[in-house]
């Protein structure tokens, strides 16, 4: 029973990590807490829904398409709106992204209605040694792990990744070294939105899709990056898996009702004991 719950926790945690990485990237580079992160995830889920139902695409093949589409949305949002508040006090960016979030949810309600949608693709599970591995969640896990790994490679080894990390460490120094900081901001926001979209596309085969599905993901992602250490990218991975496990174990040993309580108590404890997150704050 414990093993089964740990499996479920890791499967859930991988998605948390994927989605939170996007939020963490944006925060790391721009110091903007993107409240609209969850709604961007919701748009990713709808992209998958429409591509699978209208064009008969395999839902997992829609992941790159949803990422590309939301990358563009992210770039446009950054260019049009978010760029104006990057240097403003943090409250401005909170208000702005909160506004974007409300706008996106309501536009989605008008455009897609609030009917619940679902992509019924593969259900059931693989049974391995008495443990059930949910098919859709395992595949989502593999995709999440793949996309997260690619993101890390991008950050670690490419020129763009180095520029992103340099900007997040010190914008001024990056600028002096010839990094086009405006362009980096734009691409980072696009990348963050694409990661949210990947999460949404993968969730599409797991949960019901509706315009308000994203809200809870904004908060969970926020929880994850605070747990792992804001601005510290590997921290998202650790925080995500930790949150997945804590929620599931709390459901097992206490009750499902208490699992969220435990997750947020953990947040408070981490903030008290290690305010910069488990892996420390942004790397310097």
């Amino acid at each position, binding site marked *: 029973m414990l093993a089964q719950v740990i499996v479920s926790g890791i499967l859930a945690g991988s998605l948390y990590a994927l989605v939170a990485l996007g939020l963490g990237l944006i925060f790391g580079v721009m110091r903007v807490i993107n409240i609209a992160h969850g709604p961007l995830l919701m748009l990713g889920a709808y992209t998958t829904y429409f591509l699978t139902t209208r064009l008969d695409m395999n839902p997992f093949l829609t992941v790159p398409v949803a990422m590309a589409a939301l990358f563009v949305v992210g770039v446009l949002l950054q260019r049009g709106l978010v760029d104006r508040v990057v240097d403003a006090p943090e409250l401005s960016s909170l208000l702005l992204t909160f506004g974007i979030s409300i706008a996106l949810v309501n536009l989605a*309600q008008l455009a897609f209605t609030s009917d619940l949608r679902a992509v019924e693709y593969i259900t059931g599970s693989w049974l391995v040694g008495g443990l059930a591995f*949910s098919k859709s969640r395992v595949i989502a896990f593999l995709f999440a792990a793949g996309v997260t790994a690619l993101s890390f490679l991008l950050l670690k080894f490419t020129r763009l990744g180095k520029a992103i990390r340099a900007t997040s460490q010190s914008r001024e120094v990056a600028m002096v070294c010839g990094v086009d900081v405006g362009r980096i901001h734009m691409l980072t926001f696009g990348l963050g939105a694409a990661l949210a979209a990947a999460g949404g596309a993968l969730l599409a085969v797991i949960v*019901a899709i509706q315009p*308000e599905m994203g809200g809870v993901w904004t908060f969970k992602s926020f929880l994850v990056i605070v747990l792992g250490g804001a601005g510290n990218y590997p921290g998202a991975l650790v925080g995500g898996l930790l949150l997945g496990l804590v929620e599931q174990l709390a459901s097992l040993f206490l009750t499902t009702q208490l699992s969220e309580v435990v997750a947020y108590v953990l947040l408070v404890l981490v903030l008290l004991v290690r305010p910069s997150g488990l892996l420390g704050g942004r790397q310097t």
Partner: protein
Amino acid sequence: MTSKAPAALAVALALAAGGVVPATAQAPIRIGASLSLTGTYAKLGKNQHEGYQLCEKDLNAKGGLLGRKVQFVVYDDQSLPATAVRLYEKLITEDKVDGVMGPYSSPVTEASVNVTEKYKKVMVAPLAATTSIFKKGRKYIFMVISPAEVYLEGLVDMAVKRGLKTVAVINEDTLFSKAAAAGAVEIAKKKGLQIVFAEAYPKGNTDFSALLTKLKAANPDVVAAATYFDDAVALTRQMKELNVNPKMFGVTVGGDLPEFYDTLKQNAEYIYGATQWEHTLPYPGNPEYFEAYKKDFGHEPSYHSTAGYAGCLIYAEAVKRANSLDADKVREQLLKLEMRTPFGDYKVEADGFQVAHKMVTFQWQREKKVTVWPDELAQGKPLFPTPPWTSR
């Protein structure tokens, strides 16, 4: 804010619907309601709204009420009780509506009724199924549907008749679901079943792995789940994933919607659901209502639609008999009234608690809902036991 656009649309719709009918000399009777047109309960709240719309149309086609046209004023509460409270306050004090009808769901009704009682407005609450709402000494609220406590009675009764011994009861931690679960526990105990597992989960929960892992270890014969739509779907999917195989699995709300089958496809087979109403039940006017609804809205009504429709008819009948919109006179009539609508029977006790209406239990069999309980209304036999997921 978010509620404006749908609300404006709803008002525009109401006006458009009213415009079809020849205008009468007097101002229309305006009936206000807050409904869950978006948010968690949107699917069901919209059906209720369509029930109100059809009732408005039917009443006006028959010359309206007290010689005046009937017009609904509807706002969207986004499935949030606090918003509904604000909206009823606005309907009564700013819009000065002539009467009100209930919102969708027990939690929203429980919150809103405090406003309608404060202003002494009669509220027929067609979609509030929680007993406690009617047991707090309130004077002006009237129940239409069967109480939450008996939703799972059919499932439990059938289980007992088939010699099953153990049951697991799980529920969303909200007013209606809690009451349905408590009712199921009580009925099961009374009938000699053993409760081997009971747990609640928070509203909006999407991952049931740990809960179902524990449930599986308890190995119940019957799983009785007091659900709404999202959780009923998620539970079913994850029961398959975790290979949880009770001999009977029943849900409460949501399981009766066509979307339940559309979403789950063949995985919905064998699942039991409880419903307040089916279009096949032999109530007067039921077939005509069913056809008219399909024609107007392009899809079949759910019981939420029909309860909304019937609740509105019941209120209208009481107004007609009272020959007045005065709350105390209408209340007196509502307490005396015995009425059969397409939804079934209406009769309340002195506190407005429904005692005449009957619940039915159905099972999804080959893409169709087949009424299997109670015997006198059953269309067919339940497919029993539910085969394990691996051998379907």
